[in-house]
């Protein structure tokens, strides 16, 4: 039987949460920035290498600089989390560790992937140096614009959620 899992995408304003989902679900990208108000929900059925299928219900939450202000109602029953930051804007990751602590407190013991988006905007060497300087540990670096590594993020989470079921 196909399982459905609730995945929330969190992060500061304008880090590309909606774009990542759009790229993953519809394989599309738009440069026009549209602010997400409240929450937007999309779905994608993923087939894993094991041939199992899993339905990801993606909750794209509005961006916020104060993560503790995220409505608890949106986080209830979350199965997995993707935390996105913008590699081109240090303000979105300079407090990453404390941000992640807040997330872990609000949604404890759930698989969480940390994703640095917009990698296409920063040269690779500079990017490595930047993240090292800020002592940022992450799971993936992606580009919603080019589609680079986007699929991998969701596939890994889907795999984690499947084994979690």
């Amino acid at each position, binding site marked *: 039987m196909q399982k459905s*899992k609730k995945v929330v995408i969190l992060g500061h304003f304008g880090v590309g949460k909606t774009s990542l989902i759009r790229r993953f679900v519809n394989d599309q990208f738009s440069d026009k920035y549209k602010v997400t108000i409240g929450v937007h929900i999309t779905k994608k059925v993923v087939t894993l290498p094991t041939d199992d299928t899993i339905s990801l219900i993606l909750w794209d939450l509005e961006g916020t600089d104060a993560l503790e202000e995220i*409505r608890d109602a*949106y986080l209830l029953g979350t199965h997995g989390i993707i935390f996105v930051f913008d590699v081109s804007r240090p303000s979105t990751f300079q407090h990453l560790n404390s941000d992640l602590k807040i997330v872990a407190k609000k949604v404890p013991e759930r698989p969480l992937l940390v994703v640095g988006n917009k990698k296409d905007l920063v040269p690779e060497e500079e990017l490595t140096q930047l993240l090292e300087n800020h002592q940022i540990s992450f799971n993936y670096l992606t580009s919603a614009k080019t589609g680079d590594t986007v699929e991998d993020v969701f596939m890994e989470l889907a795999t984690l959620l499947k084994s979690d079921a």
Partner: protein
Amino acid sequence: MATKTDEQDKLELLKDILFPDDREAVQDISKRIQLLEHLVNDQKLLAAKVDPLVDDKLNSFTKNIPNTLGPTITATLKKEIKNHKDDVVDALYPVLGKMVKKYVAQEIKILSDKIDNQLGFIKRIKRKMRSWFGGPTEEQLLMRELASATIEQVLLIERDTGILKASYSVTNTIDEEMISGMLTAIKGFVEDAFHQKNQNLEQIQYELYNIHLQSFVTHYVAVVISGNYHLKSKNKLQDIIFNFYYNFMAMNLDLVFKSKDPAKAGKEVRTIEKELLEKELAASFGNAKI
């Protein structure tokens, strides 16, 4: 020289002379053993002797259950209820809901009848006036007032996650899992925004459609209705939802207690097949008149 047999015969003769009582006692014991053997082998005879004893024991055991097993049963039940509080509350919710609802509905009906009696005359005049001045005929107006609501879609949704458990639909809509998520987000937002604990969003209205949301502890039921959705329809719909949910929770509780099976320990299976749930939904809501 006397033979061995002669000696034995003489010995027996001597025994007869010396111990006549002993022989009788042996014969008596042998008879008693035969009798006992007969008694044990004949089930009816044995039952007649043993049954009264067993009955006595059983009666005294039954009488003593409150004292002997009572504390253990109470402790086990308490533990089960504590461990599965949500499931138990959820199972009781429709029953209690029905009772409260019936009481309130009864009181409201009395009040409504009183008001109807007062307003009936005015309504009749109003209808006649509307039909006289070129509007629809009085019959059409009456039909419109009486037109019943129709159930278009029913969704059983997990309350926290917004994940769709089962659905029943007459019309085609966009992906039902997305609708479920969005409804849950809207519901969560409204309930959170007004900081009203234990208050639930009950209805969303858009033009000719209404979405009735009936919340329980772990799940909620969303019903999309077209047509004239009024208090009477709501009343009927709630009854159908309560009945369905009661059955659903009964199935759920069965699973909870079945999964206590030690053979399945550690692999708690607590999901009811979607197909089965959808059959239940279709049976409950398919031909329902509200």
